[in-house]
Structures are given as structure tokens and as C-alpha cells.
């Protein structure tokens, strides 16, 4: 399936919001300007990816890391972005770790409560099993008699 050019664009509503938040409220933004900024942003992603790729490749690594992207941004002469990006990355990593720990704790808790739930089940099941066993015993007796009769 051929990809239409529009599919490479970032959502214009989101771009527009970022643009408006960056500018004083009285400044209006024409549709063409917004479209041009959205397009420029897509080109930026491609360019930054390509530069990041080079950074990883030079270090003989096969995976592009967050640090590689930051280094690429610096090479692209957007020095002012470097510090805010380092902070954002470190905060995000912290959040990811917390999420993993939370998930782990939830999993452990769920496993523990499953354990106690199955104990409860056993006490009621035991009674049912006793009744079943009685029935089974009756069948066994019948079977034994049948077998005896057959011989």
C-alpha cells in the first residue's frame, strides 16, 4: 500500500497548539504557516534520525539510544535543546522505572491473592469431592461386580 504524503505529517492540531503556546496570545497563525511548520517538523524528525543513526554507527552500536539523539541534536547546532533534553530524558527514565516497579508489585500482589483465594476454594471443594467420591465408590462397586460377573 503506497503511503500518501500526508501520512508523514504530524497532526496539525497538535502542532498548532505547540505553536500558539510558544507565541504571545495576540499573534495569529495563518493556515499556511501552520502547515509549513508541521512539514518542517517532519523533516526535522527525519534529519535528526539520520544524524542519530550516524552517532550510533560511529560508536559501533546497532541500537539508537536517547543519548545518541541528544548528541545528534548538538551536532545539528541546536545546542540550547541539549540541557532540557537531558533533564526530560532522565525524568522520563525515572517514570519508566517507577511504572515497572508498580507493575511488578501489582503482579506479586495478584499472585498472592490468587494463592489465598485457591485455599478458600479448596475447603468448599473438599466437601463436594467427598460427595463425589462416595458416588464414585458406588460406581466402582458396580463395576467390580460387573467384572466379577463377567469372569
Amino acid at each position, binding site marked *: 500500500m503506497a503511503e500518501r504524503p500526508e501520512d508523514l505529517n504530524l497532526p496539525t492540531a497538535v502542532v498548532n497548539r505547540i505553536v500558539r503556546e510558544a507565541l504571545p496570545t495576540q499573534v495569529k497563525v495563518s493556515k499556511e504557516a501552520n502547515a509549513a*511548520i508541521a512539514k518542517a517538523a517532519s523533516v526535522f524528525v527525519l534529519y535528526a534520525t539520520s544524524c542519530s543513526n550516524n552517532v550510533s554507527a560511529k560508536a559501533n552500536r546497532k541500537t539508537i539510544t536517547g543519548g545518541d539523539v541528544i548528541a545528534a541534536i548538538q551536532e545539528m547546532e541546536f545546542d540550547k535543546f541539549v540541557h532540557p533534553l537531558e533533564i526530560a530524558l532522565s525524568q522520563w527514565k525515572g517514570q519508566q522505572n517507577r511504572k515497572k516497579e508498580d507493575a511488578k508489585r501489582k503482579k506479586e500482589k495478584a499472585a498472592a491473592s490468587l494463592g489465598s483465594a485457591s485455599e478458600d476454594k479448596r475447603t468448599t471443594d473438599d466437601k463436594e469431592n467427598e460427595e463425589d467420591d462416595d458416588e464414585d465408590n458406588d460406581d466402582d462397586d458396580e463395576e467390580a461386580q460387573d467384572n466379577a460377573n463377567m469372569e
Partner: protein
Amino acid sequence: MDESNGTGNDGLRLPWAKVRSIAKLDETQLTISQDAVFVLARSTELFIEFLAKVSAEKMAQTKRRSLGKVDIDEAIAEHDNLMFLEDLIDMDNPEILSVPKP
């Protein structure tokens, strides 16, 4: 409308998946980690803010109060780190051609 001030999406406003799919168009690309996608998305947001601001500076030098394509073109022509966007400039615009390079 999303009212979360971007706090839902890992603090980002731009959508992850979209940034990732644009990045994956690079044919020579190696594997891209999650944190790399995060930094790419955040950098792009900073870039959008930067481009908007420098374009608004060009607009401020005229009497207009509405940001137009011409302001973006002029900002691209003026800033070295925006050279990668020069193909987007409308070269038929006489104002662009007269912008002196620093």
C-alpha cells in the same frame, strides 16, 4: 479535546507512534530504542517552538500581526541551523532573495 496538558502521553504533546513511523522511514536505520523515540519527540516539540519564535521575530519586523509562510521562509534563510529546511522555501518570493545572509 485532551485536557491533560500532555501529562498523559509521558509529558509529550506529539504522538509517539507518529514520530516513530516518520523516524522508521530512514532506510539505513538501525533499531531505535524507546528512549530515543522519546528524545526525538521532545526535540521536535522544542524545534516547533523555536521555529515559531524565530518566524514571529521576522513577522515583528513588518507591520503584520499574523504569522505567514513568508516569515517562516525568512527565518529559514537567516538561521544556519535551519539550512536543512531550505528546500521548503518558496524561492519565487522576492523578499526571500533579498535577505542578507549573516
